[in-house]
């Protein structure tokens, strides 16, 4: 994203993408200017940058094809990216607070109208929860909720864990594809170091800008076949002096990483800047840590969605092939990893108000279904 919209804040009809101003909120950058986000911050200006200033204020995760998806992934799985959107799909993704907001008129006044409600029936009013940076649509999240076990990793701690490097392709939708060598910690080893419980089923990985995606622990333990190394397609960048020869199969296998280096250099810390595609706010810099998801099938990256010849061969832009563009799941400026179990997707550890500070200091928190230290 780079290239993609991946989260949503109450996108009932057509508010999914585009139109981003320079105003910087915590809500995921592709939804910064969603009308509902703006209305919420008009009603609760002090909530800016808190946990409530995110898609999951109104949206919830859910299960699709027997797989749990977090709020961002669930919304896009049900609602899709492009019209025509399935009838009633957005309603399925709303939590009780989102439902109440819509029923109250879906405007600034609606937030005031439902302020005294207790939408999630956790014994605390919506207003009180928002004022205390809690989620009024999640009954497991209330001001007196127990804080989950957590481990805060620094660069020094991460560098002490076994180091893994992999030369790989990053397939994007809009921004151009590229090969790079990412170095870091195998994510499964990191989770084991953090004391992941046997009951853990999935993790949610959060970027500093609020974007998130979730992954099952089963897939995190898998490795994947590499593809062919190519240098002749101008939409694919490659590092100078890469070890594989052009046209050859890349040796080795790919795994999920928490990367701290790219092509031998530490990842530059992420920062929101203006001037990306469409002159919009975008996250510049990948670091200090980037969650790296491999392309699960060794296919050739296709042309950019935003290029004039996207429909031409070879390898026209192809949103329909059954391999996800891994760039959407390579999460820049990763600050938090929440470990879930089958029956608890609401572990509490509020990193939202210090996310940028964590980027500055090179910190990452893993919390949730891990052993208490």
């Amino acid at each position: 994203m780079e290239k993609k919209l991946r989260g949503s804040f109450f996108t009932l009809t057509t508010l999914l993408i585009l139109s981003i101003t320079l105003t910087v909120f915590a809500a995921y950058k592709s939804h910064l200017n969603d009308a509902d986000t703006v209305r919420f911050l008009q009603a609760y200006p002090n909530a800016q940058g808190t946990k409530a200033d995110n898609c999951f204020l109104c949206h919830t995760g859910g299960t699709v094809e027997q797989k749990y998806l977090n709020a961002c992934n669930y919304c896009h799985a049900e609602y899709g990216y492009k019209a025509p959107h399935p009838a009633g799909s957005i309603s399925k993704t709303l939590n009780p607070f989102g439902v109440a907001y819509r029923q109250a008129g879906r405007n600034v006044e609606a937030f005031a109208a439902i302020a005294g409600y207790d939408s999630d029936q956790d014994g605390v009013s919506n207003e009180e929860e928002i004022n205390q940076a809690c989620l009024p649509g999640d009954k497991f999240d209330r001001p007196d909720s127990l804080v989950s076990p957590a481990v805060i990793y620094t660069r020094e701690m991460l560098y002490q864990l076994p180091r893994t490097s992999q030369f790989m392709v990053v397939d994007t939708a809009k921004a151009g594809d590229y090969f790079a060598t990412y170095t870091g910690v195998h994510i499964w080893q990191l989770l084991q170091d953090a004391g992941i419980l046997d009951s853990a089923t999935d993790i949610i990985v959060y970027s500093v800008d609020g974007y998130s995606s979730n992954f099952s622990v089963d897939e995190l333990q898998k490795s994947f076949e590499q593809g062919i190394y190519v240098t002749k397609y101008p939409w694919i960048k490659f590092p100078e002096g890469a070890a594989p020869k052009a046209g050859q199969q890349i040796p080795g296998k790919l795994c999920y990483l928490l990367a701290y280096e790219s092509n031998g250099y530490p990842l530059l810390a992420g920062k929101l800047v203006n001037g990306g595609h469409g002159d919009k706010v975008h996250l510049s810099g990948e670091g200090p840590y980037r969650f790296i998801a491999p392309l699960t099938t060794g296919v050739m990256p296709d042309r950019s969605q935003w290029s004039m010849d996207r429909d031409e061969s070879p390898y026209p832009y192809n949103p329909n092939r059954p391999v996800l563009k891994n760039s959407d799941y390579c999460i820049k400026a990763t600050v938090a990893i929440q470990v879930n179990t089958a029956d608890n997707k609401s572990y509490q550890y509020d990193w939202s108000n210090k996310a940028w500070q964590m980027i500055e200091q090179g910190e990452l928190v893993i919390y949730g279904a891990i052993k208490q230290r």
Partner: protein
Amino acid sequence: MTFMKRYIPLIMAAVLVMTMFGGGRINAAELSAVTIKASSLVPGETGRYTLNFHSDQPLRLTPGSVINVEFPAGFTFGCRDIYDQKPGCTLTKLEFKNPGDKHYGVVNGEVKVKNQASGAQLEFTMEKVNVVVAPGVDIHLSIPGITNNNAIGSYTARLEVRDGTGTVFSGTDRFVLGLPTAATPRNLKVTESSSYQVSLAWDPVPDAKRYQILFSRTINGEYLQALDMTREPLPGEEWLLQDTKHSFSARGNGGLEPGRTYYFKVRAGNEFGFGPYSKPLAVSMPAVNLLRCSPEDKTAAEISDQSGNHMSATVDQPVKIAFKERIQVYEKVTGIQIRDAVVVVDPEHPNIVRITASLKPGKEHLVVFYEGALESSGQPKVVNRMFGWTFTTAAETKRGN
């Protein structure tokens, strides 16, 4: 009797058409304003056709709604696996924007083709859709991978839509295949506007109605159209460059890179397609380059004094610091970022960037200048590629002595 003689053939023809496309249904309706556009209308070339149409009645599109397209003899539909480098009409799609919609809706589906001596037929069966397209809304059926007949001339394509209610809509359009401009653009000039942008100009070609510029990273590699977009192309949109100059920075394809060499070529076109390319012209994107560093790469060096540890990068031109946060010093083994680094351009030698920081003794360090950290003083937006080096501080510093 005369009346019968005159109209019986027409009635029979109508019945035949309805049998072919509508199973003899009586609820057939005309599609209005069917028009055909193609990325190439040159005989023998392969390209993308876009059939634009609308209906005066609502079109209810549901899973199983079908569009049939028929092209005359000599045309073929290329349809390969979705992973193939030339998947062709496998990627056929329907796009429209109902009143009030912000973006185009896209409908995908299953594609079947028949390439026969009598003509080529494509059947597009929609999947995962449940929508009513309002009357009068432009609908675009995009079909890549159509290879044209080898002969110039006028041809007719037929289009039939069977929507979710069983209503059949049909229409036709004529299009012409012809020869492109024969001449090649001459005197192509490519100049670097910055590390990320080039400017191109060439002499006009008589009879040319448009031009197309392509670029590649290797002279014999694949070439892409050198057009920057800040949005997704519209359905069937083609590049209509009528000027003989152009500026380009490759945004949608990841961007041009400082210090890299690219190859550009241009061709002239008319309403049918494009003529031959000019010879590729190489251009190297200007960059601020590292000449030497201190301490030297992979050395153990004594570089400290009372004010701290000193490092410097000497580059090939006077510079200013564009983004200070893109110049960093790290402890190599631990990855710890050195936070108190002071970075300045030497006022007497503006091609030297000096860094002062407090570094631990006996440790390997890494200095990194990320891309865009430095900007040329004399050439705006000419910046450095990423570079860096390592060195080890002396086991004992003299700081504080």
